[in-house]
């Protein structure tokens, strides 16, 4: 189902955490809200769940205004960061809980729970206490409890952040598969851009209380709409130098570390430090007085002069992308 956010505002004390968030999330979309910590991502998600009320603005689900509905009446599913499993219940009782609240029949509940457990590979542990299972299993149980019913939309608040790096990659793939299978509207909050770029159909970057950019992952990376996004997205921030250095009549040009050919061309910079990532290395250099980072296959040492050319770049004016 579609979820429309209309001019949402939320103020805590003097801080406008959300300052007019507007977007339409399409049915069946995997929509990721990305932003640094403390930018109100979780607040936004909680407003969508109904746990918190916006100070202004509306939430419209499939044409219905649900802004003033409490969470128990919204038919949404949510996975919290710490999973929020009911510690007094078994795995099965946890997954059954939302179905029981809807008053479904016993056999029907049983059937649905078994099916979901199979889908997530937790059939073996159904009768264990949730406090007695591993972190990865807890995360699956939390997801099982969310997908066992048929909610209008799914809200996920950094559900993978408590897993270790390797498990996270596996869980990411699984989550994406499940979402495609259910054809559900997933709204997913994270501060991890890798997660955002690999999961999302569309990514919304939340900054200063607004969606600074909403676009497909590839576009977000290649055509960041603002300098802030350009610096926020990517393992290393986009490099910025004044346009005139490259002979452009524009305030600033930006290029990503991998948009260069090292060893060719007529630009030179001197290496300040080297960061090795896998096979390749990022050279942090000084280029005409500006600090930049460039990707190199070759090995360079601190103090070396490096020749390079820029293969593509974007033009920026007043911190915004020039089309």
């Amino acid at each position, binding site marked *: 189902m579609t979820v429309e956010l209309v001019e949402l505002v939320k103020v805590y004390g003097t801080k406008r955490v959300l300052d007019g968030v507007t977007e339409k999330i399409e049915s069946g979309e995997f929509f990721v809200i990305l932003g640094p910590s403390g930018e109100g991502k979780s607040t936004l998600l*909680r407003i969508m*769940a*109904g*746990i918190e009320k916006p100070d202004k603005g509306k939430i419209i689900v499939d044409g219905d205004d649900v802004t003033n509905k*409490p*969470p*128990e009446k*919204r*038919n*949404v*599913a*949510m996975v*919290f*960061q*710490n999973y*929020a499993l*009911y*510690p*007094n219940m078994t795995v099965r009782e946890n997954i059954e*809980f*939302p179905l029981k*609240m*809807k008053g479904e029949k016993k056999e029907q509940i049983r059937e649905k729970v078994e099916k979901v457990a199979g889908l997530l590979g937790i059939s073996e542990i159904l009768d264990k206490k949730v406090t007695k299972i591993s972190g990865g299993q807890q995360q699956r149980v939390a997801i099982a*409890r969310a997908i066992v019913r048929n909610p209008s939309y799914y*809200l996920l608040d950094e559900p993978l952040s408590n897993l270790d790096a390797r498990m996270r990659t596996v869980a990411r793939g699984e989550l994406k598969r499940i979402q495609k299978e259910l054809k559900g509207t997933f709204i997913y909050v994270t501060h991890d851009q890798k997660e955002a770029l690999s999961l999302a159909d569309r990514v919304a970057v939340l900054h200063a209380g607004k969606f600074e950019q909403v676009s497909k992952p590839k576009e977000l990376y290649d055509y960041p709409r603002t300098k802030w996004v350009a610096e926020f997205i990517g393992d290393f921030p986009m490099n910025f130098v004044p346009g005139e250095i490259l002979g452009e009549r524009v305030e600033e040009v930006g290029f990503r570390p991998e948009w260069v050919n090292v060893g060719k061309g007529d630009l030179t910079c001197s290496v300040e430090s080297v960061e090795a990532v896998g096979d390749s290395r990022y050279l942090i250099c000084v280029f005409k007085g500006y600090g930049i980072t460039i990707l190199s296959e070759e090995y360079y040492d601190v103090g070396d002069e490096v020749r390079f050319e820029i293969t593509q770049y974007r033009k920026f004016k007043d911190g915004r992308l020039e089309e």
Partner: protein
Amino acid sequence: MKWSYIGAIVVGAYFLFPLYVLFLLAFNSPTFTILARYPALLPISLTLNNLVVSLQGSAFIDPLIKSLETATLVGVITLILAVPAGYGLSRLPRTVAYPILVLLLVTNMMPAIVIGIPIAVEFIKLHLFESVVGLALAQTLITLPLATFILQGTFSSIPQDLENQARVDGAGLLRRLFSILLPIAAPGIAAAFLISWMFSWDEFTYAILLIPFHSTLPVTIYSDVTRGNLLAGVAFSLVFTLPVIVLTFALQKYLRGEYLAGGIKG
């Protein structure tokens, strides 16, 4: 290391000696205890006779039942008030919850002997004087703040998100309470009940002011001793003390200094 042991022995002796005396009084034959000018320091002639004689008959049973009734009633009234209060406080912002907790703590310090007299005067008018219900209502003043502290702590340790999750899963307030919050808080609730029970069981001031005549065990023990009925007093004391010592150990976790300290520091 040596100092630890010397300290340990001094401390241990100071705390154990009175208990040992109580034991001698209860089980040594009276000739070597209350009848002797210099009572024996060793268990020379152990007997159960003291206990058997004293604990027979209604002199003991009536106050025992009164004590049991009062303590249980206090536990129940306390929980009825403290469970919602503890939950409410745990869900209020600190700036609001803290003054309320301080208010409760300050009232806990109001002297029973000051409050007890006007209450006694009122209770005579309301026919609650000399009644278990009246005493329980007054003793709840002592237990309610403490139980509220314990339960506020218990409910605060249940993450707000667990409750949010239950709401998202479609549970209203009552369902959340009975399916999620109360089962998880059960150990804290049990502790609050037992501590209330224990405080009431021990309570003396309200008891002597509000039920002076046919009272609970502590007041009965007091009147036995002042009337020279020493053996009965001692025997009752022993029976009276045992459940409380057991409870003290069972509730050790909740009687910690951090808890008492945490209450004031906020």
